[in-house]
């Protein structure tokens, strides 16, 4: 049976989809359960009474009404984190090295994609574009972001990491931090020379800012529209397609096997005729492509980017990679979704649950508390410490 399944490569497409589905539903269900339970408990306290008093709605109703959008937002940012986390985890798997410049690779992807769209917008093409063309332009922007970030990742490895490969482990790490600052400043320099400003706004076009409405609900004196932002769906679909594609590349192709072989034993891999340096470059390329796409998707979702846009997502994606088990690709997906979900739930509900004492700006506490807890209690991460490998 196992043999039969293995010979069919469809398995390698279905399995990551299964992971995506299981992790999405699992983290959504768990966080929803916690939020709803908290709401039910707090409803009996002064928190619930206060909300009822002011808005004529119970905390439970409020929580439930917001839940669909919170879950979707959590998934959206979770998949973005997962796509970035895969870059960290793959490079770690092959080199046992944390590429701290990866957050800037992500930022460069975002900038290239957004600048392309801004340029297109300036010609007026975007405004008049049909829906199909709008999606085509978006895909084009994602591709440009991917290519730029991928090429940059390969270059950074070649210039700043490879010459240091024989050095002690701390040395390339410092180099990575240096590259990270350098790239930030290069983005700043280029942006100020060419546009005179650091903050770039994703142009509005197509139907990305619309919502798919599936109902209206009376809440106290007002009516709440239930719906999902279209761009959230775009981000999720694009990320899932990439994650499945990457999984297929690593698990079902000759090159993927070579990547796994290099991750497990670089010296022996070279004896098999595998050009280890090429595989390492390829790993950076793949990580960069994913990071670049994540950058453009992030810009689509959050609209505004600046040269430091990579810092927090990068740090959180790194946390996600550690949470899942650094080096483990399935772990990066799980970690990304957990962190994304956790922070979105915290950001959406913490304010109400604490009567405004802690606002959504405290949401980052959760991601980094998790990092510390994981490092203390389960340093190998949720999925265990493995090199890049089949789950």
């Amino acid at each position, binding site marked *: 049976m196992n043999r039969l399944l293995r010979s069919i490569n469809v398995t390698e497409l279905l399995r990551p989809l299964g992971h995506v589905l299981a992790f999405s539903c699992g983290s959504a269900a768990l966080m929803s359960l916690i939020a709803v339970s908290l709401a039910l408990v707090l409803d009996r306290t002064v928190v619930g009474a206060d909300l009822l008093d002011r808005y004529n709605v119970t905390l439970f109703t409020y929580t439930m009404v917001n839940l669909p959008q919170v879950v979707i937002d959590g998934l959206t940012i979770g998949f973005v984190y997962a796509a970035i986390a895969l870059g960290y985890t793959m490079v770690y798997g092959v080199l046992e090295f944390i590429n701290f410049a990866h957050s800037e690779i992500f930022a460069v992807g975002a900038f290239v994609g957004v600048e392309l769209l801004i340029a297109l917008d300036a010609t007026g093409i975007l405004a008049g574009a049909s829906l199909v063309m709008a999606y085509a332009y978006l895909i084009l922007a994602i591709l440009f972001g991917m290519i730029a970030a991928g090429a940059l990742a390969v270059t950074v490895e070649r210039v700043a990491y490879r010459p240091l490969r024989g050095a002690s482990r701390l040395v390339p790490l410092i180099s990575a931090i240096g590259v990270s600052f350098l790239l930030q400043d290069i983005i700043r320099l280029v942006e100020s020379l060419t546009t005179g400003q650091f903050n770039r706004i994703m142009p509005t076009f197509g139907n990305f800012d619309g919502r798919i409405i599936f109902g209206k609900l009376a809440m106290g004196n007002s009516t709440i529209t239930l719906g999902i932002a279209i761009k959230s769906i775009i981000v999720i679909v694009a990320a899932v397609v990439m994650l499945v594609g990457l999984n297929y590349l690593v698990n079902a192709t000759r090159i993927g*096997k070579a990547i796994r072989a290099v991750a497990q034993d670089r010296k022996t891999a070279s004896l098999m005729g*595998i050009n280890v340096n090429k595989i390492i470059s390829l790993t950076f390329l793949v990580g960069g492509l994913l990071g670049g796409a994540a950058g453009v998707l992030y810009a689509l979702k959050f609209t505004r980017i600046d040269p430091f846009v990579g810092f927090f997502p990068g740090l959180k994606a790194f946390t996600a990679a550690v949470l899942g088990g650094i080096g483990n690709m399935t772990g990066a997906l799980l970690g990304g979704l957990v962190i994304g979900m956790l922070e979105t739930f915290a950001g959406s509900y913490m304010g109400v649950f604490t009567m405004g004492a802690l606002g959504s700006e405290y949401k980052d506490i959760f991601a980094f508390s998790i990092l510390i807890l994981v490092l203390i209690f389960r340093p190998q991460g949720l999925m265990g410490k493995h090199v890049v490998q089949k789950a």
Partner: protein
Amino acid sequence: MSLLTLENVHSYYGRIHALKGINVEVAEGEIVTLIGSNGAGKSTALRTISGMMHPKVGRIIYDGKDISKKEPHDIVLSGMVHVPEGRGIFPTLTVKENLEMGAFTVRDSRLIEERMEYGFSLFPRLRERVNQHGGTLSGGEQQMLAIARGLMMEPRLLMLDEPSMGLAPILVELIFDIVKELNERGITILLVEQNALMALSIAHRGYVLQTGEITVGDTAINLRNNTAVQEAYLGIS
């Protein structure tokens, strides 16, 4: 005609002078063994030949070409395969995937299939374990896999580093029988062994390495009859 020649090869690990000018010759069709105690430089010699490390001084001529500056993935293409010390099995790749890695540079899937079948015919145990992860195999099975994987390149020269290490005597015998069989099928063998008795029983010629230098180089029969070699490496006194 000599297939492989080492001329005055010096190798270093950092500042440790591991090979101090060794000269080795392997003719086409031979089994040549390098024997010596732990740390004598046997594995270093193989690593230097296969390109995992590069000699500071000296030349390595393989098939008429100087390969001393080439990288391992290039050297493999010329038909020289190095089965490393400790076997180098990829632990979370399956047996089949490990074998496929051995034929990484081969694009013809029919050829890969054929060679895999040949490996299974030599080591039927591997066929039973084909979908198991390499790391779950016993030491003997891993050694079989390492050799079968080496054969996936259809090598002209097969270099084996301590194939008997950690194996039960009956398995050692099996492995050495196979090595002999491979040689009879035309593969030249360079064998590094601590088990000098076994090595000299199948080899045509041998070299004794001692702290990075070759002290004796002779036919296997002469080495077996050499009293100094007997005392130091064969446990005969």
